[in-house]
């Protein structure tokens, strides 16, 4: 086939009028791609939060790209670099914070490493054993933004926004308290110790406690805080007291607070207000005595066992306490004597009165002159005297008792002194000792030896008497008893004869082998045999009546 002809045969294309655009629509594709790429880039840039650096003492388990920063268990950032600080003493961690958490990066924000912790109060953050450590975060209250932080060495106990209030307690020392020690309110855990500072002058410590809501409303201006740590064993005039709280406080220490019933229960304490930390509950809850009367007593006897705080009683009821025990030189005689200062709480005594008498007592004690007159009457006329007494033989603790001693010599008391000297009487205790001694002495004087010899001779004569009695008894034996004996023997013989006779009768008549019996048995046997034969015969007859005529048949077998 010729090429030319074929080419000539080629059909003609259909002509169309087409407007060709100079710029193809295909350019939309790169434009869209560019828009998407730019959009993503912009979004990335916009969502990129701040980069912060956190300074740690040690970067335990912190790895770049693997460790997160979490706030309320939500990831808010990621560690991008871990490096040593310029002076090689610390670790500087650089982290990328999410845009959404940018506002949290303020001046007082807190960072710390979360890792498993084991303490007396339990095990925490066990999840990090598997998932690895992370950086904990807690928001601050400040508005000032910051990009560089110093990490805490241990997790903060109270997180931001936790309802409750913080208070400051002033204590002499920390005792066994530590950060995290529990704070109890009526044995419920109400908070924790969150910080401990030494006061500026170094003489006391400031314990910061955080009391959780709703317990914080029970902290009032008049609330007392005390140390509940460990085991409190006190030996006082009232005996041995052992006081413990929970096992955890035994080991880790703890605090407790309460408001004494005599205080106002109204106004709640303001946050960060300051309180005194008492050493124990009884000290803390003690009613403050605003009306006190001080007296001094001088003793010439031993003051051992009498300590500061020992009770002072009036007619056996508590009236005050010993405030000081010391020595004194009597200016007149230059003798050294014991000095005991006591504090009396008149309110306590007034409280013991019945209601109707309260007014009367008050009228007696209001004005100084009246009170003096009242006391004067008691001491100088009625003979009210102080005395040292032993409260417990076991512990040897002593106390001061005021009682009436009408026979005591009268004294004049100078009531104008700040601490008037009250008259005393010697302790009754030395009397006991003296009495014991005299008893022993008397015992000593007893003629024990003479008594011994007397006793010996008495015993001898007693022995003699007994022997004689014995002789008399033996005499009775030989004379009277022998006669009686022969009579008895005779009786015995008669009885033996009777017995033999009876036995004879037995063997012949009723014994199992007695001849009479044997014969009777044989006779009966024969009768029985005859009866049997008769019965057999009768039966035979009944069956074979013909036997009467023909004699016994031999066909018995076949009939059967």
């Amino acid at each position: 086939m010729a090429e030319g002809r074929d080419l000539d045969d080629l059909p003609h294309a259909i002509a169309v009028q087409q407007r060709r655009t100079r710029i193809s629509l295909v350019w939309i594709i790169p434009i869209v791609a560019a828009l998407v790429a730019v959009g993503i880039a912009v979004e990335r840039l916009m969502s990129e939060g701040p980069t912060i650096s956190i300074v740690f003492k040690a970067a335990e388990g912190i790895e770049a790209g693997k460790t997160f920063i979490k706030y309320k268990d939500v990831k808010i950032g990621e560690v991008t670099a871990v490096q040593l600080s310029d002076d090689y003493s610390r670790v500087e961690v650089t982290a990328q914070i999410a845009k959404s958490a940018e506002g949290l990066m303020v001046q007082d924000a807190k960072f710390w490493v979360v890792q498993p912790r084991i303490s007396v109060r339990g095990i925490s953050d066990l999840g990090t054993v598997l998932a690895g450590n992370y950086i904990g975060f807690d928001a601050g209250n400040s508005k000032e933004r910051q990009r560089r932080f110093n990490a805490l060495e241990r997790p903060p106990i109270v997180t931001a926004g936790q309802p409750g209030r913080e208070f400051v307690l002033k204590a002499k020392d920390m005792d066994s308290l530590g950060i995290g020690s529990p704070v109890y309110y009526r044995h419920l855990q109400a908070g924790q110790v969150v910080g401990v500072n030494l006061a500026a002058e170094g003489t006391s410590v400031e314990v910061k406690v955080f009391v959780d809501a709703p317990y914080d409303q029970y902290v009032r201006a008049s609330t007392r805080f005390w140390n509940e740590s460990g085991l409190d064993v006190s030996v006082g005039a009232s005996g041995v007291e052992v006081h413990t709280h929970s096992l955890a406080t035994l080991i880790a220490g703890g605090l407790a607070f309460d408001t004494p019933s005599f205080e106002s229960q109204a106004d709640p304490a303001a946050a960060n207000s300051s309180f005194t930390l008492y050493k124990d509950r009884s000290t803390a809850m003690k009613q403050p005595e605003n009306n006190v009367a001080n007296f001094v007593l001088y003793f010439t006897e031993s003051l051992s066992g009498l300590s500061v705080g020992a009770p002072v009683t009036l007619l056996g009821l508590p009236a005050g306490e010993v405030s000081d025990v010391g020595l004194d030189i009597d200016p007149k005689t230059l003798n050294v004597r014991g000095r005991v200062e006591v504090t009396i709480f008149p309110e306590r005594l007034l409280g013991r009165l019945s209601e109707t008498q309260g007014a009367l007592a008050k009228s007696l004690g209001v004005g100084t002159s009246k009170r003096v007159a009242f006391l004067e009457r008691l001491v100088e006329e009625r003979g009210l005297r102080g005395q040292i007494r032993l409260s417990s033989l076991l512990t040897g603790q002593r106390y001061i008792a005021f009682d009436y001693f009408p026979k005591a010599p009268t004294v004049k008391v100078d009531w104008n002194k700040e601490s008037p000297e009250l008259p005393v009487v010697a302790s009754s205790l030395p009397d006991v000792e003296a009495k014991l001694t005299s008893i022993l002495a008397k015992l000593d004087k007893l003629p024990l030896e003479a008594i011994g010899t007397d006793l010996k001779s008495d015993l001898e004569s007693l022995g003699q008497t007994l022997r004689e009695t014995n002789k008399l008894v033996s005499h009775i034996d030989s004379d009277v008893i022998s006669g009686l004996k022969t009579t008895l023997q005779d009786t015995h013989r008669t009885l033996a004869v009777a017995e033999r006779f009876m036995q004879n009768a037995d063997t012949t008549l009723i014994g199992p082998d007695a001849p009479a019996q044997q014969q009777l048995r044989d006779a009966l046997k024969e009768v029985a045999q005859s009866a049997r034969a008769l019965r057999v015969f009768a039966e035979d007859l009944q069956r074979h009546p013909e036997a009467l005529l023909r004699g016994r048949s031999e066909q018995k077998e076949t009939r059967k």
Partner: protein
Amino acid sequence: MIVSCPTCALLCRASDAADPGRCPRCAGDLEHRRHDSLQRTWALIAAAAICYIPANVLPVLTTSTLRSAESDTIIAGVIYLYTSGSWPLALIVLIASVMIPVGKLSALAYLLIGIQRGSFHASRARTRLYRVVELIGRWSMLDVFVIAFVVALIQLPPVMIAQPGPGVPFFAAVVILTMLAAMSFDPRLIWGNERSRYG
């Protein structure tokens, strides 16, 4: 002037040199050269080049283990493979995922520039280059394929999870766009315009 119908391959006479008209058999548009070949190829190359940036900057695979989550870009994967000692594997990934897309784009750009400048120097070599580009195109989805496999296989929720990263669609777009660019390129242009040679 004779034109072959791109749809039914019927040879027919063009009605006009500038606009060949329609095929008398199938009524398809007749073209001397692929319609707007240069412009389309350029546009697709540009789009692919734009997508190439996020494809490499954004992570392609996010693996979350119990301890942490890691997002890796392609380059990070190459570096990881290299530092962990398997440099042959690193080389394969580097060539397949980084160099080949760049190579394809620059090869097509080179061909296009050559045509636009009207240079017919070493036309055979350039045609061969075009064939190589077209051939490689379909193998460039290797990365996307591997990621699809990994994501499907590693799903052990609390311990380990692999998830595709935002870079994957961009990477796929790069591959597809370069393939389309190679398709829309008319290799006949390498040999000159119809008017310049056979006009």
